[in-house]
């Protein structure tokens, strides 16, 4: 049916990442040999990135429903109701491989992609977050990657005009050849004006919007599903370049035509570009789609059907338009200087037909393209449980003060100011809590409502025990939202793993998803969107399992959110939650003792829930003057962070003595928070804790300019802060 296209050979099939049995599935499905363009389309639709063929069966178990969920997984982004007729639209997505190959553009286009997912649904983006994992700081490529990725995230978001308010940065040698860039975008819409991808109506015009199509990123989707070998750098010609300027125009133009009621369905062109977006619109609407490629705005001459169908040029959209609104919509796009072309129509046939130069290049059953994608129940091995380490068995190599200073200046615990100062985090004028706290707080319109936003995961826990690690990631996100006083509502997950064809990796995946699922159920914290990134490994060495959780919560009054800084001297410091002194997989063990061992701390979800609800109540009633959840580094690190924030020290009570001192100060037991309470409220708080059966311990009193611990040298807050702030800038300047 098509002219001048290469013949299909087994080699060509293999180059498209299709296994022989998958190719056979294609033959059975269409009853003939596919054309070259069709082969390209199958390879794009059936690769891991688009089809979720290894993960689908497990993702089904995730809880996705709650009364406030408007749209769960399955659309461009999840949608939740926050009351007052408003909805929050959000999702997180990875751009790992592209960011390794070209850190600036890879990260930038990652941000661009996720922003598009959000505004495609009719929401104006109001905040971004990003979770970044890099290799060992000593690895020769790490500095270059950090510098490029951070500049790229900032470069795109700053220009687009959305505040980047939170995220994570970590370093570990297991990310040496595979850094992770997970970008999250959050938008705001009227809850009755959400736009979806499903087309409806026969003979409706399909419109192409945005930038022109070039040869960018052809095979991008298949690259994202291939393991890196030595020659990864050779895949370079596929690099996509982001154009935040065009995206900003696209945003304004899209919101304008949506407001004018021109749109039946809309879908951004992300992975596998025109192919994926057109097929999804048709399939979801039970309709066929015919595309006329001669009408597609192209940047380069002589592009083939294959290239146009697989191009991943950025800043493009596909839309089904109300026919009577065509002129109005076109005028809006022209005003914003964007391309606007009718490139096809919906049909009753349920076939996906692509014409180019007078020939039919593609004629495929549209629903089966997605529905009949292979699905694998890959073998998995969850591995053996690691031993629980007794705190007594871990000899402290140095005193508590020295250990604190060492931890606070370590790559994972040090201040990430160097990163977030490159992100505009104040634009739009709604950033109540900036980066540096537990969760960012962003006012909704003129308030009083606000959103709390966070991104969390502790990969070393996931590696040691995928199930507990999965639970912990969700619990930590929930806790961070709670610590600022927000009610956690829903989350998006970005599941980054190695090669799923290896049972032990698949075991990590399955375990983490089970853990996430369990925690979501018990904390009433559903999953409304997400993304899976597999094959993050080089020469057989996988990344740490990294299921990043992006959490969203709501505050009724933004002026009542709690921050972590000690505010004034003379306030009582209280610890909420039980301390056993869990050192297995702790940062103390890794940074101070040089060991990555043992089982991670277990997560008791009932305790999480009860302690969290207690803390949220205290914040809501304005009883606490500071609140902070405990995580990496344990109690003393949390106290140090609270002290450094405004330069107020504390005099601490001695460790209770029933566990070793270092386990008391640095253990990473879960479900804990530190709060400060003015003296007048202490009794009331203790009484309230007792009625709610929540464990509370007095830790000491705020004041002074150091952390004073009995039998330890005083730790000057200013010196601590110097260490805290110094590591990253010094590292990036090449001084470390």
């Amino acid at each position, binding site marked *: 049916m098509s002219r001048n296209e290469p013949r299909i050979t087994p080699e060509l099939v293999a180059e498209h990442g299709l296994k022989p049995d998958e190719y056979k599935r294609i033959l059975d499905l269409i009853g003939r040999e596919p054309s070259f363009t069709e082969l390209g389309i199958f390879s794009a639709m059936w690769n891991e990135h688009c089809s979720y063929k290894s993960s689908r069966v497990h993702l089904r178990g995730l809880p996705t429903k709650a009364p406030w969920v408007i749209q769960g997984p399955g659309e461009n982004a999840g949608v939740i109701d926050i009351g007052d007729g408003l909805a929050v639209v959000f999702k997180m997505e990875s751009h790992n491989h592209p960011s390794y*190959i*070209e850190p*600036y*553009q890879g990260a930038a286009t990652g941000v661009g992609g996720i922003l598009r997912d959000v505004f495609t649904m009719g929401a104006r983006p109001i905040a971004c977050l990003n979770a970044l994992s890099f290799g060992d700081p000593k690895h020769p490529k790490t500095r270059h990657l950090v510098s490029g990725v951070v500049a790229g995230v900032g470069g795109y978001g700053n220009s687009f005009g959305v505040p980047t308010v939170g995220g994570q940065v970590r370093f570990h040698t297991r990310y040496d050849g595979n850094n992770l860039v997970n970008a999250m975008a959050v938008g705001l819409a009227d809850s009755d004006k959400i736009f979806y991808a499903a087309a409806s109506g026969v003979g409706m015009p399909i419109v192409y919007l945005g*930038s022109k199509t*070039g*040869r*960018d990123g052809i095979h991008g989707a298949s690259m994202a599903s291939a393991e890196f070998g030595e020659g990864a750098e050779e895949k*370079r*010609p596929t*690099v*996509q*370049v*982001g*154009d935040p*300027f*065009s995206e900003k125009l696209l945003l304004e133009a899209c919101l304008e035509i949506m407001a004018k009621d021109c749109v039946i369905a809309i879908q951004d062109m992300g992975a596998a570009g025109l192919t994926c977006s057109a097929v999804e619109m048709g399939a979801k609407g039970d309709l066929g789609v015919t595309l006329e490629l001669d009408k597609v705005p192209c*940047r*380069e001459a002589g592009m083939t059907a294959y290239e146009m169908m697989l191009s991943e*040029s*950025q800043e493009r959209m596909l839309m089904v338009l109300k026919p009577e609104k065509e002129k109005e919509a076109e005028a809006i796009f022209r005003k914003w*200087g964007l391309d606007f072309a009718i490139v096809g129509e919906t049909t009753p046939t349920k076939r996906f037909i692509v014409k180019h130069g007078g020939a039919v290049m593609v004629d495929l059953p549209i629903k089966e393209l997605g529905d009949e994608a292979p699905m694998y129940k890959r073998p998995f091995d969850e591995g053996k449980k690691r031993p629980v380490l007794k705190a007594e068995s871990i000899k402290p190599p140095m005193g508590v003060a020295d250990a604190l200073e060492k931890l606070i200046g370590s790559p994972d615990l040090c201040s990430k100011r160097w990163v977030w100062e490159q992100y505009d985090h104040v634009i739009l004028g709604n950033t109540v809590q900036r980066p540096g706290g537990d969760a960012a707080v962003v006012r909704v319109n003129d308030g009083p409502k606000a959103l709390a936003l966070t991104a969390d995961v502790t990969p070393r826990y996931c590696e040691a025990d995928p199930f507990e690690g999965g639970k912990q990631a969700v619990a930590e996100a929930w806790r961070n939202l709670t610590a600022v006083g927000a009610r956690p509502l829903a989350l998006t997950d970005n599941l980054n793993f190695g090669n799923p064809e290896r049972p032990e990796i698949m075991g990590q995946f399955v375990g983490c998803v089970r853990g996430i699922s369990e925690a979501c159920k018990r904390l009433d914290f559903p999953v409304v969107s997400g993304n899976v990134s597999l094959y993050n490994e080089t020469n057989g060495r996988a990344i740490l399992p990294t299921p990043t959780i992006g959490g969203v919560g709501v505050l009724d009054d933004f002026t009542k959110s709690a921050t972590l800084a000690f505010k004034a001297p003379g306030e009582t410091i209280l610890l909420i939650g039980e301390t056993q002194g869990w050192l297995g997989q702790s940062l103390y063990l890794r940074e101070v003792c040089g060991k990555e061992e043992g089982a991670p701390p277990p997560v008791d979800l009932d305790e999480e829930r009860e302690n969290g609800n207690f803390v949220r109540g205290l914040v809501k009633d304005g009883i606490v003057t500071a609140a902070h959840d405990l995580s990496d580094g344990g109690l003393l690190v949390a106290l140090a962070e609270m002290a450094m924030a405004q330069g107020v020290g504390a005099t601490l009570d001695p460790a209770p003595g029933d566990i070793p001192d270092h386990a008391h100060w640095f253990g990473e037991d879960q479900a804990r928070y530190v709060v400060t309470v003015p003296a007048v409220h202490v009794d009331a708080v203790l009484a309230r804790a007792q009625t709610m059966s929540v464990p509370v311990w007095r830790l000491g009193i705020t004041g002074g300019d150091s952390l004073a611990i009995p039998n330890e040298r005083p730790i000057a807050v200013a010196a601590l802060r110097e260490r805290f702030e110094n590591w990253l800038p010094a590292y990036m300047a090449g001084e470390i």
Partner: protein
Amino acid sequence: MKARVTVTLRPGILDPQGKAIEGALKSLGVGGIASVRQGKVFDIEIDGADKARAEAALKEAAEKLLANTVIENYRIEVTG
């Protein structure tokens, strides 16, 4: 010695700047502009008088820093 390193985007790579400039020139009414692509030049002074050595240093500079060879090409001219 003086040299110039010219760094340009590889063909086919999107050039958002060039595109915006092209649009601006058109709306300013500058006639006949069909397309614009933007690149960079680095005017470099080098110590010494050994041309081969200078060229080697420039190549190193271009590869290591001046050009992002994933998306850019570069050209070196020693001008005197």
